[in-house]
């Protein structure tokens, strides 16, 4: 019984962790460039709604994924303009991005609300157990999760682009003096994080839920922001973090499925409580890993 629960939870944590990982990777890039995007949740919702809509219209879930990526990037443009060009308060601008995503996704998703859609094709890996079987369902986005992590890690730590991006996040005035284009780099980082969050939303809608429901991402965007701190702005650590927090979500679903007599409301709290409880574990060294200019509007010359 316990073994079944553990294996099933591990299998399910991959599905739940994939969307968290994509959102976290995007946020790492944005924060390394000095921009904290509090509106991830709204972008994920927009991606999920656009993914559902495009999949329903074309009948091909890969068009849905593409639409989600484009929607995520497109909705982030207005946020990028506010924080990069206007020097707006990043937390307030992030919240307006959240509002925008909530509203836009409700508008786009409305016709598809509750309708079951044909999601991403997946391969089921079965682990036979004495009672039933744990199913690890692998789709294209799950397969691409680790290569995407490697790509982000490589781009940030081994390319000229990544070095300049990080320089802007640490000290924009020095980066400017060294000839970096802060505006362009921050735009790129924010749009990339938007595209990643759109992808995260698409995975939730097209590979986990197979439908659209208002507010369906349920705070995962905020968990991803906490995950960035937890992972100390390191893409590889984000993989571990996404599996742990995805695991919390999966465990809660498995416990409910196993008929344990605990209120589903209490179990639904698990991912959020775990996130809050994990924040102190980041430690002082972890907090010092934050980009030095994170969240500060640039006021220098350009």
């Amino acid at each position, binding site marked *: 019984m316990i073994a079944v629960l553990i294996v099933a939870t591990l299998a399910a944590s991959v599905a739940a962790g994939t969307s968290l990982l994509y959102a976290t990777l995007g946020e790492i890039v944005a924060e390394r460039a000095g921009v904290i995007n*509090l509106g991830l949740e709204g972008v994920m919702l927009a991606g999920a709604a656009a993914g559902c809509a495009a999949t329903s219209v074309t009948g091909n879930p890969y068009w849905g994924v593409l639409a989600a990526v484009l929607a995520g990037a497109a909705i982030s443009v*207005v946020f990028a*303009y*506010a924080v990069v*060009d*206007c*020097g*707006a*308060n990043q*937390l*307030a*601008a992030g*919240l*307006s*991005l959240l*509002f*925008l995503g*909530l*509203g*836009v*996704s*409700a*508008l786009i998703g*409305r016709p598809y609300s509750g309708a079951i859609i044909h999601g991403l094709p997946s391969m089921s890996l079965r682990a036979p157990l004495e009672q039933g079987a744990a199913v690890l369902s692998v789709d294209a986005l799950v397969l691409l999760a680790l290569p995407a992590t490697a790509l982000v890690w490589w781009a940030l730590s081994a390319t000229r682009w990544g070095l300049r991006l990080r320089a802007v996040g640490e000290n924009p005035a020095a980066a400017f003096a060294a000839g970096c284009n802060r505006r362009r780099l921050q735009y790129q980082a924010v749009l990339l994080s938007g595209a990643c969050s759109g992808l995260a939303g698409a995975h939730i809608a097209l590979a986990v839920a197979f439908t659209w429901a*208002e*507010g369906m991402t*349920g*705070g995962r965007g*905020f*968990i991803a*922001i*906490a995950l960035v*701190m937890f992972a100390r702005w390191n893409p590889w650590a984000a993989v571990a973090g996404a599996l742990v927090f995805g695991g919390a979500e999966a465990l809660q679903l498995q416990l409910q499925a196993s008929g344990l007599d605990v*209120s589903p*409301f*209490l179990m*639904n*709290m698990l991912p*959020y*409580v775990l*996130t*809050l409880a994990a*924040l*102190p574990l*980041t430690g*002082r060294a972890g*907090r010092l890993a934050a980009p030095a200019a994170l969240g500060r*509007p*640039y*006021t220098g010359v350009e």
Partner: protein
Amino acid sequence: MQIERTFWKVLIAFAAFGLVLLIAGKHPLQAYADTAVFVLGSLEGFTELFVRMSPLVMAALAVSIPARIGLFNVGGEGQIYMGALFATGTALSLAHAPSWLLLPATLASGFAGGAVWALIPALMRIKGVANEAITTLLLNYIAPLAVGYMIFGPWRSPESLSYPQSPKLVEGARLAVLPGTRLHAGLLIAAACLALCAYVLYRTRWGLEMRAIGGNALASQHLGLPVRSYIGACMAIGGGIAGLAGMAEVSAIQGRLVAEISPGYGYMGFLVAWLAGPSAAKTVAMAFLLAFISSVGDVLQITQGVPFAVVNILMAAILFSVLCGGKRAGALQ
């Protein structure tokens, strides 16, 4: 000049939102006209604005008090739910107490619920664990689940079959409601909180110290101001006032604890506070605006089949136009 500028930005936002609705195949002008007729043409619609203003003003104070010392409380929504939860708990367990004791105890519990919920992020901020913006947002997701647990579990009223809710509160725990309307004493509580906060901020030593910390927390710390205590106190008082809003929803409007205590008043309150700044008069004006916007949402939902959540686009448009309007101004203030 400030008010005139804000007016134009709001107008631009309404136009932008209308454009979005037009693209979606809806009829924005019809919606705005319907809202105006509903709000100005009926007593019900007009008083409803004031019914909504009271939680909006209280939720705005929950943001604006911590904002004076540079904190970012986005947890108004969760604090409203916790205030409602605590208030219901007191009202149900002291149901046989005399009214002069029961109502103040219910009020105090509502305040305590919101305050406790705001103290968690305050403590995490003081300990340097995490920024209060992210922790308050996460707590917003836990509080409604706690309410759901209580009304589906221990407090579930036997008479509620498909729609779980708590038993009805006794008369002694109910706030006064103006007969024939939904206007209730919560509006007076909101006005009192607003006046008290303005007084404290501009006429007392505490207010002076708060403004000093908001100006430069590090310098204030070196001057010997108890910055940590102010972080705890401002968050707790702000959260407590949001909790009062939750208490008023339970005690005056619903009469019992239900799953949907707030349609996002906490988030709308953030917008009110951000647009209004420290000014009490502007807070009232912006709360009125947001009450009107939520009426637009209702009208859209009823007459054009658009989900209520779509008004979030209008809220985003207003906030973005204010944030982008003063180029670089935000950075220099």
